[in-house]
């Protein structure tokens, strides 16, 4: 494990050149998510900023030492103020509820999105502590590297080969849980070529911090070239079982030899990963 760690570190260094901020979206879903975030923030700031100012102003003006402030020790009720006090937050929330309602439906992760060309299906498997990306149509199995053509709708089917975690590429948009025995669906589209940061966003054990991956958006030509570059022993059930053991892994692209691998994982024909060996205090994974 220690030896592997050194290799992984170098690949992680390469990764850190990736972009990441969610206010710099590079995919349609990320852009829309961010837009809704900004809109909701704006709606709320419209009432929150005056409130904050009023808190400071009232506290200051009505300080005990201020002789110019009028003391009204019996001012404890006012119908008009009560009305305003209830209706302002209520109206704000009404507006926000509209955003919530429309946004939840438009940006439902399962909802298909448009784009150039035929949608590309990618099957995502989270493992302890690496990501396996299967391209059933291209017959590819990629570890810790997700490559997608720019502009093509991506139809992601996700599951977990061990514990529950979440798949997230901040600049492409919406995260989603991965769970063993189940398939989650997520539709994304990368709109600009580049290397992006992908991560697991739900604690999954000791190797969690290393469970990130490179998400590459490339041109159609480059994608075609990439699909040709698969090398090494074909990836099959035996290879999967080996990969499913706890530990870290370097990016690798291999031809996929088992076309039903994903459904075998979901249906548990291939059992979930074994976890650590039983012991009181398991030894360090990463030194």
């Amino acid at each position, binding site marked *: 494990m220690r030896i592997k760690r050194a290799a992984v570190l170098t690949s*992680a260094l390469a990764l850190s050149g990736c972009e990441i901020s969610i206010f710099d979206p590079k995919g349609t879903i990320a852009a829309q998510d961010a837009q*809704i975030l900004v809109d909701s923030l704006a709606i709320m700031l419209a009432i929150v900023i005056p409130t904050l100012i009023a808190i400071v102003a009232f506290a200051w003006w009505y300080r005990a030492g201020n002789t110019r402030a009028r003391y009204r020790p019996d001012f404890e009720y006012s119908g008009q103020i009560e009305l305003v006090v209830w209706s302002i*937050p209520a109206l704000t929330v009404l507006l926000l509820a509209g955003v919530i309602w429309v946004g939840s439906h438009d940006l439902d992760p399962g909802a298909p999105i448009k784009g150039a060309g035929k949608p590309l299906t990618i099957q995502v498997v989270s493992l302890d502590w690496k990501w396996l990306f299967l391209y059933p149509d291209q017959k590819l199995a990629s570890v810790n590297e997700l490559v997608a053509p720019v502009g093509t709708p991506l139809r992601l089917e996700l599951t977990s080969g061990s514990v529950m975690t979440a798949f997230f590429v901040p600049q492409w948009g919406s995260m989603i849980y991965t769970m063993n025995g189940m398939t989650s669906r997520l539709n994304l589209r990368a709109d600009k070529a580049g290397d992006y940061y992908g991560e697991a966003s739900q604690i999954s054990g000791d190797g969690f*911090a290393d469970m990130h991956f490179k998400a590459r958006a490339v041109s159609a030509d480059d994608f075609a070239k990439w699909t040709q570059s698969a090398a090494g022993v074909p990836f099959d059930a035996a290879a999967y079982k080996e990969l499913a053991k706890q530990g870290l892994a370097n990016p690798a692209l291999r031809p996929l030899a088992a076309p039903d691998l994903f459904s075998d994982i979901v249906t548990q024909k291939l059992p979930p990963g074994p976890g650590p060996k039983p012991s009181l205090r398991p030894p360090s994974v990463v030194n």
Partner: protein
Amino acid sequence: MLGKLTWDAIPFDQPIPLAAGAVVALAVLAVLIYITVKGWVPYLWREWITSVDHKRIGVMYVALAILMLMRGFIDAVMMRTQQAVAFRSNGYLPPEHFNQIFSAHGTIMIFFGAMPFMIGLMNFVVPLQLGVRDVAFPTLNSVSFWLTASGALLVNLSLVVGEFSRTGWLPFPPLSEMTYSPGVGVDYYCWALQISGVGTVLTGVNFVTTILKIRAPGMTYMRMPIFCWTALAANLLIVAAFPVLTATLAMLLLDRYLGFHFFTNTGGGNMMMFMNLIWAWGHPEVYILILPAFGVFSCVVPTFSGKPVFGYRSMVMATMAICLIAFMVWLHHFFTMGAGGDVNAIFGTMSAIIAVPTGVKIFNWLFTMYGGRVRFTVPMIWSVAFMITFTVGGLTGVLLAVPPADFMLHNSMFLVAHFHNVIVGGTVFGALAGMTYWFPKAFGFRLHEGWGRWSAYFTIAGFYVVFMPLYVVGLEGMTRRLQHYDVGAWRPWMMVSVFGVLLALVGIVLEIVTIYVSIRDRESLRDEVGDPWDGRTLEWSTASPPPEYNFAVLPHVDHEEYYWRIKQAAARSETLPEEPHYVDIEMPRNSATGFVAAFFATVMGFALIWHIWWMVGVAFVGAYATFVAFAWRDHEEHVIPAETVARNDHARRAARAKALKAYSPR
């Protein structure tokens, strides 16, 4: 003989926890020896450990909470420093240790810091504000406290014997199942919370009964101080929500101990069920934490503004609305499960709706200050800081309740910033405001203003410097619970954040100094009269500290602002109300039940964690026998003769009469 327990359980190879554990153990031992040598044991046993007086129990709850908040803060220091140094390196905490720290931090802060603090304040204040002598079930109250302490002890024991959970403050399966967490960590977590959870439910039952059934004559619901309303709401939430937690953890334990398949990957288990159950408890829980704090501010702001709380009825309505809606929003904690547009939209909208009563409360405190004469004492500084901070935290909460925004921010540092923004800025500020406000009532002298003020400034500044950067890195895609990272953009913010920890540390040290200085100078800070802040509610009508029986005679409440009005009337006429007729008072006798039962519960928890089955049996029989012994006792009460009551009350009246001359009525 000792189940899974062997010498391997002690982390001889890990210097940090071992040293930390040793230091704590030595400190505890030193304190115990000191107490014994000084001959304080009988006093402590008689006056505190076996006390069933709600005031004493309240003080013990707060003391436990402060201790645990400090333990949790040490965890926080370790996490922040680790993330400050673990950039392109492993830092100094390996993952299996780091993961224990964030799990212990959250567990300790929520269950043994924030909650006991709030329950402690409720214990101390609610009967006094209701104008009664005690809670409905005094001995049960003591049992609640000691069971909470038992849970806290188990969690801290895991530092040296075995390990703590590494799955976060909520043990999400399947990670927390035997397959993926074969150690005893999750068992420590579960049993500690099962034991303290019993205590919490009993507290809930106790306080709901007290507030609904035991109030001073004339104290109708609409005359109760807001703090009692928020206490009622919080305890209703406890009664309704905590059994859900207990059941959920019981199912997880069945999975782990007996091979059941509630939440496992295989055998038909379903982790989504756990998510739903735990958050069906979890969201009400956050309101259990915040509602009592709202109550504190509803006492502090009126007192120091010299006005009644603005919009009393609105406040009550808002409180009860929150209490109800708190059960209808749980799914906002897992929008990213992919439940579909309709489900997410409904829960998102409900979550936004809960912000309405919350906003109303902020506005009502605002208008309580309006037209007032605001005295910026330490509790008031906390209150204003709260109003500002909590408004920001509420905003980010509602932002997270917008599903598409949450798809980007779920489990990120932004989320971490949100909940610290509301829990520190709400619950902790409220706890400190409440502690400073009621300290003179509990001990008969005020806390030093000057030191307390600086403590508040540093703590508040520390809070902002620690957590505002976390919002930023959250927006930059940083997820929570990273033991190390390689993204350069996050680094500067982590450095700023760790600097904030330093400020907060100064704040905490100053708070300790405040307490030390106040004890040293207690004569000059003495509260002779029992009403040091010109208060408005009943607790300020009795002496500081109050006698065991709270009130010489129970007040006859005829108005929402009853005490304020008799105070003004007395000041105007320059005479105290007529001397009442004193009678004998019966008070419950002390009982060791709580302490002894909790002792057995601790042993049982420990034995269950380590699979020492014979010890489980012995401890269970012991705990049961304790209850039987308690149920069998004949003398339940002792009598305080009328002469004693009269003597005490004469002293109180004399002090009041003297103070009356200096008091100018409003």
